[in-house]
Each structure stands twice: as C-alpha cells, then as structure tokens.
C-alpha cells in the first residue's frame, strides 16, 4: 500500500468515527425528544377541550357523564378520587408487605435463598397486568363477593389488592438495594453496643436507608396511579363518586381505556380523554421527579 492510499484509508476511518459519534449523540437527544413529543401531543389534543369547555368545570366537576342526553358532564373529580382510592388502598398493602419483604431479603436471606427471592421478584414483575386483572375477575372478585355478601367483588378493594401486586416488585427491589447499601460497619457498631439484630435494623439500617425506601414508595405511587388494565378489569368501573372501598370505582386510566374506543376522533369527548391523559402524565411526572430528587440526595 502506498502512502497516498494509506492516508486515504485513515481519513475514511476518521470520518466513520465522527459519523458514529454523531449518530450516538442523536439517539441520546432522541430520548429527550420522545418525552417532549408525548407532552406536546397530549397538550395539542387536550387544548381544544379546555378551550371549548373551560378548565374550572373539568377540575371541580363532580360528575363524569359525557354521553348524557340531558347535559354532558365532564367533571374529573370522581375519576380522580377513584384513582386516589386505588393508590392509597394499594399502598396500605404494598408498603408494609414490601418493606417487610425487603428487610427479610436484605438482612435475613443469604446465597441461594436470596437468589431465589430475587427470581420470584423478577417473575412477579414480569406478569402482565391483564393477567393480574384476570385473577381479579376469577379469584379475588368471587372471594370478596362471598365475604362481603355483595353480588360481585368488583370494587376498590379488589383493585387495590391487584395494584399492590403490581407495585410490590418495585417497592421490594428498590428498598432492598437501599438497605443493602447501608455500610456494614454502621450495623456492626450498633450490634457491638449490645443491640439485637432487629434493633440494628429498625434503629440504624432503616433510618440510613430512609431515602431509598421513600423513593421506592414514590415509584410505587407512580405505578399505582398509572396502572390501567387491572383496574379496568376488576373495579366495576362505575363513574360515580365512590364513598367506601367496597364501592365500584373508575380511575382516570380506566376511563380513558373504556371510552376511547367508542368516541369519534376529534369530538369534544375525544379531546376530554386527552385532557385526562395530560393530567395523568403530569401527575406521574411530578411523582417521578420527586422520587429522583429523594434518591439524588443520597449520592
């Protein structure tokens, strides 16, 4: 190979290298673009509704009945309260169970047992929400109907149990990591001062891992708010203001899933569902940012 062609081939390699750099850089930017695009599209489709209908009645209206023959009602409150019921109900189950399992996982399991639990978590987290919803219909619904004496068990309790199942893997795995990150010296110091292992966990490890544990709860909230199929399938979907956990609920997510299939594209009803989507997007975004802020302070 003469000098000239050698130079050329080095030149070519350099061009390819700088091209590659640009492509990778672009794909990084593309990620940001996706999030921005999602938000812009939700805005674009939601704005016609807000213009047409006004914001106040949407945020403070206590009735959701867009197909009413008398007067169409677009109040998000019943849907929002339903989402709140499911979120709180699921956390009442998933926080104690999740934290308990995380403590067991991080502090009381070793080697094979630890690996087995990790495997169980992975499998549980991979189960599609439609399958969990199916279990809500076939197992939990009839069970709840029997113990409460109602004619079916499609209510907020059912949805909360199912959503708790969906959020448990998130809460457990992140809390476990937080507990495992607590330096061993600190725990040992507590033990050498005469405390029992349990005391060391409660008084030293958990306070140390507090931020990670809180972040896991926040992510659990985010998942609970956004969970769709399980609640569509197992909560009965009555679009009324729920009064107790034994009432049927219709969450914001469920409402979109149920009604979007039936509305004419471009109608006011269509745009109203995007408005709900926008609210959902913003709520989960804020929850995620909070959880990131909590974790960031650790490092």
């Amino acid at each position, binding site marked *: 190979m003469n000098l000239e062609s050698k130079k050329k081939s080095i030149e070519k390699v350099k061009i390819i290298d700088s091209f590659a750099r640009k492509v990778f850089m672009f794909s990084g930017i593309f*990620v940001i673009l996706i999030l921005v695009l999602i938000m812009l599209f939700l805005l674009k489709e939601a704005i016609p509704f807000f213009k047409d209908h006004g914001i106040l009645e949407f945020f403070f209206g206590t009735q959701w009945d867009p197909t009413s023959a008398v007067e169409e009602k677009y109040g998000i409150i019943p849907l929002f309260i339903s989402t709140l019921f499911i979120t709180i109900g699921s956390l009442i189950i998933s926080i104690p169970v999740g934290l308990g399992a995380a403590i067991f996982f991080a502090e009381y399991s070793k080697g094979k047992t630890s690996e087995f639990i990790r495997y169980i978590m992975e499998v549980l987290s991979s189960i599609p929400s439609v399958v969990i919803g199916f279990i809500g219909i076939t197992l939990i619904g009839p069970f709840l109907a029997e113990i409460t004496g109602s004619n079916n068990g499609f209510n907020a309790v059912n949805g909360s149990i199912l959503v708790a199942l969906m959020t448990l893997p998130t809460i457990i795995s992140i809390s476990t990591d937080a507990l495992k990150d607590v330096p061993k010296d600190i725990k040992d110091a507590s033990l050498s001062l005469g405390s029992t292992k349990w005391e060391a966990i409660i008084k030293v490890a958990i306070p140390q891992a507090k931020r990670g544990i809180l972040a896991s709860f926040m992510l659990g909230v985010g998942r609970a708010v956004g969970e769709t199929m399980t609640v569509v399938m197992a909560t009965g979907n009555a679009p009324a203001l729920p009064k107790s956990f034994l009432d049927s609920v219709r969450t914001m997510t469920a409402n979109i899933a149920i009604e979007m299939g039936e509305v004419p594209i471009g109608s006011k009803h269509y745009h109203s569902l995007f408005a709900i989507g926008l609210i959902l997007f913003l709520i989960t975004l804020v929850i995620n940012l909070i959880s990131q802020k909590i974790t960031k302070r650790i490092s």
Partner: protein
Amino acid sequence: MKKSTIKKNIIEKIGITLVSLSTLIVITSLVIIFFDIISKGYSVISFDFFTTFPKKNMTEGGILPAIVGTFYVTIASAIFSVPFGIMAGIYLSEYAKTNKFTTLIKATIKNLAGVPSIVYGLFGLGLFVTGLGFGESVLSAGITLGLLVIPVIITATEEALKRVPDSYRDASIGLGATKWQTIKKVLLPSAGPGIMTGIILSIGRAAGETAPILFTGAAFYLNSLPGSIFDKFMALPYHIFTLSTQHAQISKVRPIAYGSTLVLIIIVFLLSSIAFFLRLKLRRFGGNK
C-alpha cells in the same frame, strides 16, 4: 436488666416473624396466580389450540391469530426499539460527559419509564394512527410499544458497557483503533450478553402490554392473519381482556380465556427466566468487574 433482654428477644422474634410473613405473602401470591391459571387452563391446551382460528363466536377453537399478532407486533417494536435503545445506551456509557445535558437525558429515561402505559397508547393514537396516518395497525402499535420499552434497553446497554473494564478500552485505543472501532470490535462483543438480557426483558414486556395497543391496532376478532404492517391484528393480552370482559357469553369462553392466559404467562415466564439466569451467569462468571 434481664427483663429487658427477654423483652428485646420477644420483639426480635415478632419482627422476624413479620418480615418472614411478608415474604411468604409475596411468594404465595405468585404461587396462587400460577396454580390457578395452570390448573384451569391446561385442559384446553392442545396442538389445535395453537394452530386454529377461534370458532363459533370464539366459544371454541384456538388462538392462532392472537399468537401470530402478538409475535408480529413484538417484532415490530423490537425492530424500532433495539437499535435506538442500544445506540442511546452506547452514547450514555461511552460518549456522554458528566454534565447537565447527560443528567437531563438520564432523568428523562427514568421519567419515560414512569409514564403510564395508557398515555403511550394516547400518544400512539395521536401521532401514529391519526397524525402520520398509519391507521390502527401493526406498525402503529409496534412503534408505540417500542417507545414504551426503550428505557429498558438503554439501561441494560449502559450497565453492560459499564461492566466492561477500562483496560479493554485502553488496550484497543492504544493499538490505534478509533472509538467506533473499539465499540464495535471490543465493547459490544463483551457487553453482548448483558444487552441481550435487556432485549429479552423488553420483548416480554411488549408481548404482555395491553393498554398501549387498545387504540393503536388491536382487534377483537379477525378472520385472517395480518398481511402487512398496515393491517390490524389480534393480540394475546387483548384477547384475554376481551374474552374476560367484553364477550357476550363470558362464562362460555372462560376456559379459552384461561388457556390464553396460560399461554401468555408461560411466554413471559420463559423470557423473564432466561433473562434472570443469563444475568446470574454474567454476575458469576462474567470475569469483568
């Protein structure tokens, strides 16, 4: 003194019991789910169940179109998400400097992972189905699912690349290779299995999602398989949803709903198991780190 020790021991016992109980609740739930679906679903599983169309208003017959549809839409999502996910992962691990822009990208990935799947469905409807005119189709649903799983692939790629020791990079650069040559010939081959875990997990996720495909292409019933990427499709998770909530004779189609659920759960179970053991093997015998 002695009394307080006894009290401490009792509290410790109660504590251990409670955390064991929590773990047991989680494991038992999983066992109950699997047991219920397997015990009630296995009887409808046969060769014909996989190879025939639903018959008599879906009260009989198999789930061939749902399986094929899920396969198509999952492949479509992977074609879109795998290259982009890997490239963004490479960018974050190999090119990105520690600055505000990188922090923003990382935060965005976490936020994307937290966007509810039904919102992805709305976005897919607005942009791909109506905006770009792809209609309700394999393509629209595929890209929507692709967007949903991109964070999984990016994170797996970034982590796998970070596990490759710097000595590999230094050796390659020292031999005169460019950065791109180093990535292509050295880093990607050693990070391959780790990236593969991410791809497998993302496929399992895409195969099981329902909400994003509700309005982007999934159909209640079709009497033929999708012939192009612009056709609607049947999908296994959507099939389970319709059979258990929308169908006029819900009790009559219940066995088929169980069978479909069993098939779906086996698919995601196998995928997540493969990913798990691949990662376990990497951690044990990866050599690097």
